[in-house]
């Protein structure tokens, strides 16, 4: 009898523990989706996820030279905005001088504007990890058209990652 009661208690404990695990997993999931960075949930396009971030008008010339950060607490600098172009299919691409060390050894890569957000004076790449960005082809302007400095484009927002 006593043994049975203890068994019940033990199984309740297991249940409780499982519940706690599920709850923590839920929190972790919520955090991985929303803190400044995303990446977009599976099945959601970049454009759809960017639309959830209240895209705001910004002058292209005001973006040039801005620091591009990684959406993590340490806000590592990934590079700087070099230029803004329109790709072959009309999508806006932000050309980022990516990587390197103190500006040496960086190379330009073209990141879809919908993968980036504005953070005050800075920008963040929220939809790609550094590993993914490292595999981006070095940007070549052929087939793209530059976007004028005084053009207005729309870029989503995020809360600071720190």
């Amino acid at each position: 009898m006593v043994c049975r009661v203890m068994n019940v208690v033990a199984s309740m404990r297991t249940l409780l523990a499982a519940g706690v695990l599920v709850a923590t997993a839920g929190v972790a999931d919520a955090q991985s989706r929303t803190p400044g960075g995303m990446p977009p949930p599976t099945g959601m396009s970049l454009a759809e996820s960017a639309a959830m971030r209240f895209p705001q008008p910004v002058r292209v010339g005001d973006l040039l030279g801005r620091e591009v950060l990684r959406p993590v607490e340490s806000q590592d600098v990934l590079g700087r905005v070099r230029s803004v172009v329109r790709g072959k299919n009309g999508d806006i691409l932000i050309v980022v001088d990516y990587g390197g060390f103190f500006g040496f050894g960086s190379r330009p890569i073209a990141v879809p504007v919908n993968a980036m957000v504005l953070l005050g004076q800075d920008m963040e790449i929220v939809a790609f990890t550094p590993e993914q960005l490292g595999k981006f082809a070095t940007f070549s302007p052929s087939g793209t058209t530059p976007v004028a400095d005084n053009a207005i484009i729309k870029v989503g927002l995020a809360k600071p990652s720190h």
Partner: protein
Amino acid sequence: MKSLFRPNEIADASILDDHRPLLRSLERRGLFRGGLSLGALAMLTGCDVKRPASIEAALLGISRFNDDVQALLFDPNKLAPTYPASMILRPPKFNAYYDVVDVKPVNGATWRLELSGRIADKQPWTLQDLQAMPQTSIVIKHICVEGWSYIGGWTGVRLRTFLERVGADLRAKYVAFKTTDNYPSSIDMASALHPQTLLALQYGGETLADPFGYPVRLRTAVKLGYKNPKWVTAIEVTNTYPGGYWESRGFPWFAGL
């Protein structure tokens, strides 16, 4: 002459050998260390150091004292620095206690500003009512307690003008705000009456965008960023301490600049 303190019978020298490990462990630094922790305990006189709640209360007491000192030092006529319009960051920086995807836009047409407390005319205000009031523009720095800042241009109704119009008791202690994002906030009356404290309706000459508090937010140049609630829906003038979202989580209430 023989020292007065010299014992008549001198102990056997072998006693030193017997207690060598103990003698070795005697260190003057140990005394320092002991003194330090004693000092630390003395700082918390009156507290049971085993109970964090009492330590928290003591620290909160210090924070309230800091608030009072800041309030004493506050000069209601001193203006915060302003900047040329060319320095306005467009768009401004978004921040909240949640991410931007959770912003709930407010319908300006049905929005009402509710008034309560020590106010003579508690008639709710519409957005048109506020737009019809004299508008003031300021270009000021938004300084966040986290360490970042940006220069922003805000246009709206001076809170002083508004409080005077509705017949608020300007000798009351606090002006409290409620918002649609459950971010209560409150400021002292002196800061509420400061000429650089606005009920802001515009940013950079354009209607406030949704993530920045449309239709109305508080924008004051004399407080840290977290004292600037967005999407304001109610104002109360009161003598009862109203607190605020971050203040109830240990942030200083006065938070002056």
